C-alpha cells in the first residue's frame, strides 16, 4: 500500500502506528537478516517499554510480599498490587474490584471456575454447553469435571465460515443445563461470537455463562456489565503484559458462593487445626504469594491500552485484517480458514500442496513470525477436516508493510514448492 493511502488509513483510525511501534524494543529485531514481522500475537504479544519500566521500578524500589507486614515496602507493594486490580476493574467495567481475581492466566481462570463452581454445584446428569470453537483450555477442564461427576457436554456447532449456529445453540438447553462456557473470539479462526446475545439466551433459561476472553480483550473494548457475563477469563501476556498473570472476573454473588480453588496463605482469616475461616473475595481465591510484579505489569499494560484507546485499536486492526484478507485471498492456491462476518485479528490459512509447518519455517526465513499447527483447537481443525493451518495474528503495532512481507513470503513458499 502506498504511503499516502496508509497515512489516510492511519488518520481515519486515529492511530500513529510508527510512534507506537517505537514503544516496543523487540520490534526492532532483525530475524535472518530481515526486519521482524511479528504476526503471532494470538499466541503471545510483546511488552512496551512502559510496562518493562514499571516492572523494573517495582523490583528496584517497591518489592516485598503483599498483605503481610507493616513496613514501608510491604505497604508499597500491596498498594501497587491492589491498585493494578482497580485499574483492571475499570478497564473491563466490573462493578467492584473484588470481582477481579488474579490467576496465572486464562487456563488457570477456567480451571478455578471448574473447581470452585463446577465441582461444588454440578452433579450427575447436569449439562454444560461448549462451542466447536473452543481452545483446549475451555474444553479439557470440563471433560475432567464430566468424568468426575458424570456430567454431559453439549457442543454448539459452527457453519463453514466458522460462525456458531445460534438456532442449534438454543436447542441445546434443557432443564439439566447448568453452565455455558464459550469463547468470545476464536483463537484459531478469529470469529467474534455474539456472546451478548448468547448470554441473554442462557440467562433467559437461568443458566450462568463463562466467557473465554483471552483473544478478545487485546482487540476490542470489553464491558462485563454490559455483556452481563457471570465469568470472564483472560491472560496478561496476550494483552502486552507479562506471562504468569491472568484474570478471572466473576460476579460477586457467584464468587462468594464458590469453594476456594487452592488452600494456603492469604486466602484465610484464621486457621486452627480444628477449623479454618476463609478470607473474603478476591483473596479467598489467591492462595500463596501471587506473581506480584506480573500483576503490577498487567496494570501498566492496561494503562497503556487505555491511553491509546480500545476503539482506535479495534479500528486499526480492522483495516489491517481487511487488507491482509484481500491480499492473501488473491493468492491462487491459498485458502483462508474462518471467514466469519465478524472477525478480530486472526488470519488462518492453508497453502495448497504445502504443509503449514513448511510454510512457517520458510516464512521465518523472511523474518515473518506466524504460528503453525492446530492452535490448541483440534476440534476446530476436525470441523474443517485439516490437520493444521498457518495463522497470522495481528496487534495494533502491526503494519501494512508487514502484511506485504507476509504475502511476499507466501509467494516465495509457492515458488519453492512449484
Amino acid at each position, binding site marked *: 500500500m502506498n504511503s499516502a493511502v496508509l497515512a489516510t488509513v492511519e488518520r481515519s483510525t486515529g492511530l500513529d502506528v510508527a510512534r507506537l511501534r517505537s514503544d516496543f524494543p523487540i520490534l526492532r529485531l532483525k530475524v*535472518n537478516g530481515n526486519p521482524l514481522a511479528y504476526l503471532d500475537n*494470538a*499466541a*503471545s504479544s510483546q511488552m512496551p517499554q512502559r510496562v518493562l519500566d514499571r516492572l523494573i521500578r517495582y523490583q528496584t524500589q517497591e518489592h516485598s510480599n503483599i498483605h503481610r507486614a507493616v513496613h514501608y515496602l510491604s505497604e508499597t507493594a500491596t498498594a501497587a498490587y491492589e491498585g493494578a486490580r482497580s485499574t483492571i476493574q475499570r478497564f473491563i467495567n466490573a462493578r467492584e474490584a473484588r470481582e477481579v481475581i488474579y490467576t496465572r492466566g486464562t487456563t488457570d481462570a477456567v480451571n478455578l471456575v471448574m473447581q470452585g463452581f463446577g465441582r461444588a454445584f454440578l452433579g450427575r446428569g447436569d449439562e454444560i454447553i461448549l462451542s466447536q470453537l473452543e*481452545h*483446549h*483450555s475451555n474444553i479439557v477442564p470440563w471433560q475432567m469435571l464430566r468424568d468426575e461427576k458424570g456430567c454431559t457436554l453439549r457442543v454448539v456447532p459452527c457453519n463453514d465460515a466458522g460462525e456458531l449456529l445460534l438456532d442449534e445453540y438454543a436447542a441445546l438447553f434443557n432443564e439439566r443445563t447448568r453452565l455455558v462456557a464459550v469463547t468470545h473470539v476464536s*483463537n484459531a479462526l478469529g470469529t467474534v461470537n455474539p456472546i451478548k446475545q448468547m448470554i441473554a439466551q442462557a440467562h433467559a433459561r437461568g443458566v450462568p455463562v463463562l466467557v473465554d476472553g*483471552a483473544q478478545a480483550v487485546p482487540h476490542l473494548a470489553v464491558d462485563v456489565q454490559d455483556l452481563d457475563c457471570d465469568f470472564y477469563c483472560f491472560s496478561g501476556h*496476550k494483552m502486552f503484559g507479562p506471562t504468569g498473570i491472568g484474570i478471572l472476573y466473576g460476579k460477586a454473588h457467584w464468587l462468594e458462593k464458590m469453594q476456594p480453588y487452592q488452600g494456603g496463605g492469604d486466602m484465610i482469616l484464621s486457621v486452627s487445626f480444628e477449623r479454618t475461616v476463609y478470607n473474603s473475595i478476591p483473596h479467598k481465591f489467591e492462595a500463596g504469594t501471587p506473581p506480584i510484579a506480573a500483576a503490577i505489569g498487567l496494570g501498566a499494560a492496561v494503562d497503556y491500552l487505555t491511553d491509546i484507546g480500545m476503539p482506535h485499536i479495534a479500528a486499526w486492526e480492522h483495516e489491517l485484517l481487511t487488507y491482509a484478507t484481500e491480499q492473501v485471498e488473491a493468492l491462487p492456491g491459498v485458502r483462508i480458514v474462518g471467514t466469519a462476518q465478524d472477525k478480530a485479528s486472526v488470519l488462518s490459512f492453508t497453502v495448497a500442496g*504445502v*504443509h*503449514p*509447518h*513448511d510454510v512457517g*519455517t*520458510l516464512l*521465518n*526465513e523472511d523474518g515473518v513470525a506466524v504460528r*503453525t*499447527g*492446530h*492452535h*490448541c483447537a483440534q476440534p476446530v481443525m476436525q470441523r474443517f477436516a485439516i*490437520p*493444521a493451518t498457518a495463522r497470522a495474528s495481528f496487534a495494533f503495532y502491526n503494519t501494512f508493510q508487514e502484511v506485504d512481507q507476509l504475502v511476499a513470503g507466501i509467494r516465495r513458499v509457492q515458488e*519453492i*514448492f512449484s
Partner: protein
Amino acid sequence: MDSKQLYQEVVLDHNKKPRNWGSLADATHRAEGLNPLCGDHIWVALKVQDGLIEKIAFEGESCAICKASASMMTANVKGKQIEQAERLVQEFRDMATGRLNPATQPSQLGRLVVFAGVKDLPSRVKCAILPWHTLHAAFHDRGTTSTEGDADPMGLSPASESA
C-alpha cells in the same frame, strides 16, 4: 540457519514424487508413526526375508521434511540387512540432533546428509526423524510410535503445545 539448505532440490523432489509410496500386501513388519504436535502421520510396511529388507513402502500425511525423509529412507534401506538399517537409524538420529557431524565424522548417511541442517531448527527435528522412529518400531513389531512421551522409542524429550 538458512532454510534453503534444508529445502534443497533433492528434498523438494522426494516430497513431490515420493519413492516407495503405498502399502505392502505381503508385509512382515508394519508400524504407524505419529507426531501429535504437528499432525505428521505415516505408516511404514516392510517385507523382511532372512534379515534382509526385500520390500519397503510408506504412506501418510505429513510436511515436506517428513515425507522427503521417509522417501529417501525407504530408497536407502531397501536391499539392506536389518542391522545395517538399524545403524543408519542411529546415525540419522544423531545427525538430526547434532550429535554426529557428517562433514567431519564417518557415517553411512550418503545423500541423507541433506537433512543435517534440521539440527538448527529444533521444532522440525521430529519431522525428519519420525520415519526413522517408525522404521525402528516396525523392526521391533511395535504397532504405533509417537514422537511424544513414553511412546517415543528414541527418547527425545517431549515438546509441549501452547496457544
